[in-house]
């Protein structure tokens, strides 16, 4: 993918104890025009970030001195709207983090693709900007499937008008499923739709996200059972 240079006045905080990852992520985001503040230690990051909140935070989960979950909780307490992306190097960690109501906006599993990460950062910045400007979606940017309504610009989902708060990955999965109700989507297809820039995502990751997506929809609509597991194949969206 050809990287389009555009200037963003936004700041991204990168907190990871791996110097190589810090260095490359910093370089890549700077090339996209973001201002980057990188930290190798959770406490150091918190001490600096609470002075001046970033526009977006990328957090590793395992960090020295203060782990990413704690840092996320503290940042959330300061700002509801701050987009947060988690980087995780363990599948079990992902499950655990998904179970916590941390309100993270996305999760990527190491080894992730830098292109994927950059794309997510862009999506999250855009979503944050559009949400600030209020709900005025153009009709062609809306996908409707029964009571489900997906705003493809803002990456927001509504069930009978009620907002379902989804991560970017969950939104992309739901969009992929809801576009063709009744059709089975294989995990491979879902992977390609949810991680367009990353060909190395494990199938377990998809399952974790689907599980979480179902739970969020059930929280909104207790009788929801629209996402069906097709054993040996993948998943199918059945509509309301």
């Amino acid at each position: 993918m050809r990287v389009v240079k555009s200037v963003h006045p936004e700041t991204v905080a990168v907190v990871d104890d791996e110097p190589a990852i810090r260095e490359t992520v910093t370089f890549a985001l700077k090339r996209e025009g973001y201002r980057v503040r990188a930290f190798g230690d959770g406490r150091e990051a918190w001490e600096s970030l609470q002075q001046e909140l970033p526009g977006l935070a990328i957090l590793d989960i395992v960090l020295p001195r203060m782990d990413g979950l704690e840092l996320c909780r503290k940042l959330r307490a300061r700002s509801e709207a701050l987009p947060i992306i988690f980087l995780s190097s363990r599948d079990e960690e992902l499950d655990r983090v998904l179970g916590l109501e941390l309100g993270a906006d996305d999760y990527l599993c190491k080894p992730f693709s830098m292109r994927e990460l950059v794309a997510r950062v862009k999506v999250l910045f855009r979503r944050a900007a559009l949400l600030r400007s209020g709900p005025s979606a153009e009709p062609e940017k809306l996908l409707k499937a029964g009571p489900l309504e997906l705003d493809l610009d803002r990456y927001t989902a509504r069930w009978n008008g009620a907002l379902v708060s989804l991560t970017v990955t969950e939104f992309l999965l739901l969009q992929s499923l809801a576009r063709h109700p009744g059709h089975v989507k294989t995990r491979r297809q879902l992977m390609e739709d949810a991680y367009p820039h990353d060909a190395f995502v494990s199938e377990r990751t998809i399952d974790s996200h689907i599980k979480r997506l179902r739970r969020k929809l059930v929280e909104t609509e207790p009788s929801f059972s629209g996402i069906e597991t097709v054993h040996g194949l993948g998943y199918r969206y059945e509509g309301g």
Partner: protein
Amino acid sequence: MGEEGGPAGAPGRRRRGGLSTRLLAFNLLLVFIPAAGLLYLGTYEKQLLEAQERSMVQEGRVLAAALSEPGALAGEEAPRVLARLNRRLESRIRVVDAHGKILADTSRLGPRREKPAEEGREAKGRERILYRVGAIFYSLSHRLLPPAEPPLEMREPSPPDGQLRGREVEAALSGRYGRTVRPSPAGQRSVTLSIAIPIAGEGAAPAGAVVVTSSTWRILQDLYAIRLGIFQVCLASVALAGVLSLLVSKTIARPLQELRDEAAAILDRRGRLQGSFRRSQRKDEIGELSRALHDLTARLEGYQRFLESFAAEISHEFRNPLASIRIAAEMAEDAEKEEDRRRFLEIAQREVQRMERLLSELREMTRVDARLESEEQGALSLNALLERVCEGYRLRGSRVVFSFEPPAETITVQASGERMAQVFENLLDNAASFSPDGSAVRVRLDREEGAACVRIADQGPGIPDEHLPRIFERFFSWRPGHPEADPHTGLGLAIVRTIVEGYGGTVAAATNPEGGATFTVRMPASRTGVFAKLAPRA
């Protein structure tokens, strides 16, 4: 793999109670065999019969002697004597002349003194049932081993012509002692014993004979009473043995069954350990077994946890360099400037090196874990080893100054030189990596309470208290200040601990009050001096 789950459970269930049954059978046999022996052995019966025969012979002799006066048989002497004796005898006594003609017979002398009524005893139902139960064993044994019955004389001993015949009579009339056993007319199991004693006459030929006849019925009656008694004792013992066996099985078999159930519960369907045995408070061998099993499963559980966490840790540790390599490769691909591209390729190279190092250290660590016991080890002088290791650092031109302070005596430990060199190199590497340029790392060797004690002190930042408990854990790593320099895996100190603990030693770390960290290795020291000569090492 056939040991897991269902297949192993089924035969175990089939054997349920096997130990209890065997205990019961064993106890019953112990009680029953001697008792049965008493019941079955004919010795006692034989002795009683002999005793009866002796007393009959005695009676016969006395009578024969009394009648041996010349002419005693001719008159009414014999019936008179018998009439006098009659009420005092239990046997039937007949006197015959030299031709076998009956001269006198106690049975023709009116009613005899009756023996105590046996019917009353026989009639008691309980004893009858007991006796029948006993008789089953008794007749069974007789069927298997028929007792040697004496030959039976079938002829009627009291012919109507008053002439008494029979082998014993013939023998007595020819001057010898005669004896015959006949079946009792009553047709019971009892027999009639008949003996004949010659009565001395004037010549060589006897003048007649005294024939004493008695049924063994009385003896059998006595034996029956004895056997009944023994059988009652035997039954009581069997009941007692049953109760005792139950108690014993409660104290042995039951706890063993519980242990087995516990063992079955500990393995889940997939054969994984779930928890461990309870530590029993019992003071006996079963308690010891349960405690041993508890320790065993606790160790296994620990090892299982270790394996599971180890796999997770390894995948975690590999994902970080893998992530760096992947994004560095992507970045190099997307880079527009040549210098950027080179920079990312360098990062990728560095991370590949790190993965290689991680792999080799992991291999090292599992090898140490598995082989330390079997590796060659001998008396190793720590003085020489530490001198050599420090010299090696000096020769390589380290940025840190290593100084070794050897003690006056030579301190030796039982270990492999290669492994101990690895321990100290890892500790010195660690100390050096935290030391500022030109600072000193001091190595001291002492003997303390029989242990060889090596202290390695650096002048680095020391170790924060919160990290102290974790620094010897695998993959634990804390590198403030200069993270880019000197790729590390977090395994060096873990390897140190594995080796030292494998030799029965300990390793600890502390922050010095004056700054810097001190690592202390304690190893069991070999005995030296007089004691070493007196007691050669085992």
